[in-house]
């Protein structure tokens, strides 16, 4: 059963001269209880993709140029703004990298968590506050009843992230979009937040789209993964398939770049060059200028995703050779 079906999503940004596509042809399916990783480096479009799903982009500059996002037999991209507001927070909720800038500092955490319940379900303030205490307990905040009158700035970074998760879960959404939720946290705290997300999934069947740049985080938490580069999907599939048998030179290059997989002090087989700016994307495959597998065809035409194995697809014409050549 598919909960969310994204097909051919294309998000464009206006520049003074023309429109550039920050996300181009993104497709994936999300099942209930699945954790899907959207992984990529800065500028790969992972955050734009995530925000596009909820249409949370600045409407003056950004527009969804193509694609469908099917959720419960409706295409989210075609809903009115009023209909969309009902979906946001109730059916699909989102958490962000920096909780401090997404929690209104003038409200107590109790009010922040109660607000979506009052707005979406018309619950009484008293009932919503009671539920807020319960939610704070669920996300592992000690003494929840005593915390509810405190303000966001009185919490540590990890605790703020827990508060944001509690607020996101208030309406029991079916999908949680998590945009780099642990990037700003220390590694020991990151492990706690990841464990919390896994526990929530196990307990409630919540499906999660986890946006991250950290392949280690993907390996630890995600069931499936979509690898983005310059707005295009390079490779997607089950996490273990993609990370142990990468079929795209970019994925392979990222894995080779991890200092923990190389011998200590050995030169890392890094990817040469830099990602292209969005307004100067190369012809053909966007990765080809940095790719050591590139052939003429890669420079001429965009390479489409091709199924390489059950549920595993790669946008590389030479996917068969990717693992056969040494670093």
């Amino acid at each position, binding site marked *: 059963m598919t909960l969310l079906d994204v097909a051919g999503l294309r998000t464009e940004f206006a520049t003074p001269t023309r429109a550039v596509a920050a996300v181009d042809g993104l497709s994936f399916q999300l099942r209930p209880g699945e954790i899907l990783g959207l992984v990529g*480096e*800065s500028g790969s479009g992972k955050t734009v993709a995530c925000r596009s799903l909820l249409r949370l982009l600045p409407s003056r500059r950004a527009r969804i140029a193509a694609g469908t996002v099917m959720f419960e037999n409706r295409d989210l991209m075609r809903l009115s703004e009023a209909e969309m507001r009902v979906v946001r927070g109730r059916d699909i909720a989102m958490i962000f990298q920096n909780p401090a800038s997404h929690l209104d500092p003038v409200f107590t955490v109790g009010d922040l968590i109660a607000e979506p319940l009052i707005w979406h379900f018309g619950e009484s303030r008293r009932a919503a506050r009671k539920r807020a205490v319960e939610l704070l307990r669920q996300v592992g905040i000690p003494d929840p009843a005593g915390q509810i009158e405190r303000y966001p700035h009185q919490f*540590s*970074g*990890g*605790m703020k992230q827990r508060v944001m998760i509690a607020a996101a879960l208030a309406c029991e959404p079916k999908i949680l979009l998590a945009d780099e939720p642990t990037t700003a946290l*220390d*590694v*020991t*705290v*990151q*492990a*706690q937040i*990841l*464990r919390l997300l*896994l526990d929530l999934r196990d307990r409630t069947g919540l499906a999660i789209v986890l946006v991250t*740049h*950290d*392949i*280690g*985080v993907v*390996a*630890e938490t995600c069931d499936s993964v979509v690898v983005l580069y310059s707005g295009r999907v390079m490779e997607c599939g089950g996490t*273990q398939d993609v*990370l*142990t048998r990468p079929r795209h030179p970019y994925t392979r*290059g*990222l*894995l*080779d*770049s*991890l*200092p*923990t*997989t*190389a011998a*200590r*002090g050995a*030169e*890392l*087989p*890094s*990817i*040469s060059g*830099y*990602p292209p700016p969005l307004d100067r994307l190369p012809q053909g495959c966007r990765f080809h200028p*940095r790719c050591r597998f590139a052939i003429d065809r890669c420079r001429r035409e965009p390479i489409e995703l091709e199924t390489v194995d059950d549920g595993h697809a790669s946008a590389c014409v030479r996917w068969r050779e990717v693992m056969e050549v040494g670093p």
Partner: protein
Amino acid sequence: MNDLLVDVRDLSVRYTLSRSFADLLRRKPGRELAAVDGAHLAIRKGEAVGLVGESGSGKSSLGRALLRLTPATGEVRFDGTDVLRQDRRSLLAYRKRAQMVFQDPLASLNPRFKVGEALAEVLRVHRLTRREEIPGRVAALLDTVGLDTEFADRRPRGLSGGQCQRVGIARALAVEPEFIIADEPVSALDLSIQAQILNLFLRLQREMQLTMLFISHDLGVVHHLCQRVAVMYLGRIVEEGPADEIFYHPKHPYTQSLVEAMPRVEFPKGRRELPRLEGEPPSPADKPPGCAFHPRCPHVMDACRQDPPPSIRRVGAAATACHLYPETEKA
């Protein structure tokens, strides 16, 4: 040991916290915060030492104190001379031998200077190169860090993060230093660029026999680059030893949880249970009594709540400051 280049003894860095308006009126003295609290660290010539810790552990303060970029007490002996007690002139001479690379390369480069000008300024200030030879030297520096000569005419704004960091490294190398302190130099970079910069550091170590203190929150990065690693928690060095020892056989419970918490790409995994370390590092302004790690420590004992941990001492191949390792263990 005569091949010791940097010998840090009992180094402390204290900051005075800003007072609230009410406290100002009451003329209450500002409270002090010990960002670094009695640290000892020895770095041999040609060695790369990693300094690991979470935010607020004092690792950056320690690094800055070594270059006297922040006031400190204790001793920092560089090649036998105490840096903390040097006058201005010998300090300038010291900074010709020791340099720093910062985390945010864009913020640490003057936006008005072209890359070439920024590098030329270093050469001029330290009177290292004759005027007519400066352009050639700038080109050579850019080449060392893997940048094309045309970058000399670009301004920092037009560069990517990785390119900026290469300029930051070139600027540090301009004085041909013996010792480089790199403070989170790859933390702001994407993985593929991080690997390029790590390779550059490895090459510099190999080819120039640079001595390095590499500060990072990422144990994996530090382990890859450094021969020895020191781990800091709330201002104290809690464990120190050979990189492999710290990475594979950590002794201090904090190091153990740090290693455990590292997200890994390892398959097949029975979805290894993510570690259960509770809590977060407290504020350095409000350290717990006894061992600062005790509220989070899975092995906490009564002694840890009351007495500060013993001073750092050898346990196997490494050294640690923890009540778990009480008496002298044979090395």
